């Protein structure tokens, strides 16, 4: 049985605070009631899903009307993804049945917190049928044990 090197106290504290941040973000997302669109930035927040598999994290994002060549995925830090995409056309809120506000939506924007550590540099991105799929290999904790 191989035992990997233990984490330092500093690593453990960092990981603890990262977990706390993720938890706070998840609670905030659950509790807040706000529109899915923002007229100041002309953006809409797309539907997304994060799935943790044994070896990877798969993030999918529903991007109908997105121009494929404008889809931009960025990792601002080690545990978040930011996604931006322009729409094929400007969509007036009235076209979506929103009659009490004037304005247009022309891009998607999403900020996604990842629930486990991943190897951002090995990110794979694909766009299939209007669904953006991002695959990220998981980064295992240095405390994990492996049976040989």
């Amino acid at each position, binding site marked *: 049985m191989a035992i990997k090197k233990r984490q330092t106290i500093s690593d453990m504290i960092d990981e603890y605070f990262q977990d706390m941040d993720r938890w706070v973000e998840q609670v905030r997302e659950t509790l807040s009631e706000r529109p*899915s669109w923002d007229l100041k930035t002309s953006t*809409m927040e*797309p*539907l997304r*899903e994060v799935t943790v598999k044994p070896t990877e994290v798969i993030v*999918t994002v*529903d991007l*109908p*009307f997105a121009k494929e060549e404008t889809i931009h995925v960025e990792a601002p830090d080690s545990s978040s993804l930011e996604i931006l995409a322009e729409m094929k056309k400007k*969509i007036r809120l009235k076209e*979506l*049945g929103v009659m009490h506000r004037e304005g247009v939506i022309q891009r998607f924007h999403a900020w996604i917190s990842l629930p486990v550590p991943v190897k951002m540099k090995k990110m794979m991105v694909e766009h*299939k*049928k*209007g*669904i953006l*799929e991002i695959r990220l290999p998981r980064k295992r904790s240095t405390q994990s044990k492996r049976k040989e």
Partner: protein
Amino acid sequence: MSEEVKIVETGKVPLKGTLIFAFPDVGLVGVIAGSHLIDELGMVEVASLNSNLLPPVIVLHDGLPHSSIRIFSSQDTLLALSEIPIPSDILLPIMNALFHWAKSKQVKMMISLSGMPIQDRQDATELKSFAAASNAEALEIAKEKGLEILTEGYMVGPQAVLLQHAAETGSQALTLLAQCFYNYPDPEAAAEVLKDLTKLTGLKVNIQKLLEKGEEIRLRARDVMKRTQDEMTKMKKGQEYDIPMYVS
């Protein structure tokens, strides 16, 4: 009919017809298919469901308030459609009321339209569709029309309540399910389920129009899908993924 739930008729309701159920569920398959049916068949509102159990929500159309659960009609076809996800704790009385109302209208066949979530849906090139029946007679009808039968598995939500009620009372009911996304609106799956509906009922529906509007529908349905996700979680919809365990 339960006193907490009332169905108010506002138009002529045909007797001995077919009642189709289109409620928010996985991929919003039923609602997308049902909305397309209203357009395609020129269906008109003939009744609405009022209940103090429902959330305090009305839907404005042309400046006037409407119930979030309405019944539409075209010739001998009826369609019950909900524009909001039905909270899991009131699903039973709502479905009970609709079921008893359908019986009072001597409905011959009840058909619910829904989806069956599959993982990696975005990789699927062809979507399969299935039917489940309330009794042997309804099952035979589905087979005769060439529908693939869902022989084993779990079903959660309005269609489960419908099949159970119909089975208990010897009524004919079918659930049509197409493979779909769990969390994203899925017009392609709605088109598949409508293909099966046309086979079953002989209704003429232009599926191509629905597919052409696919992206627009996905955008418009985004918020209803998000709220539906919350209700699906509460009713443990994920159980449909489970491996069935049978004890003989």
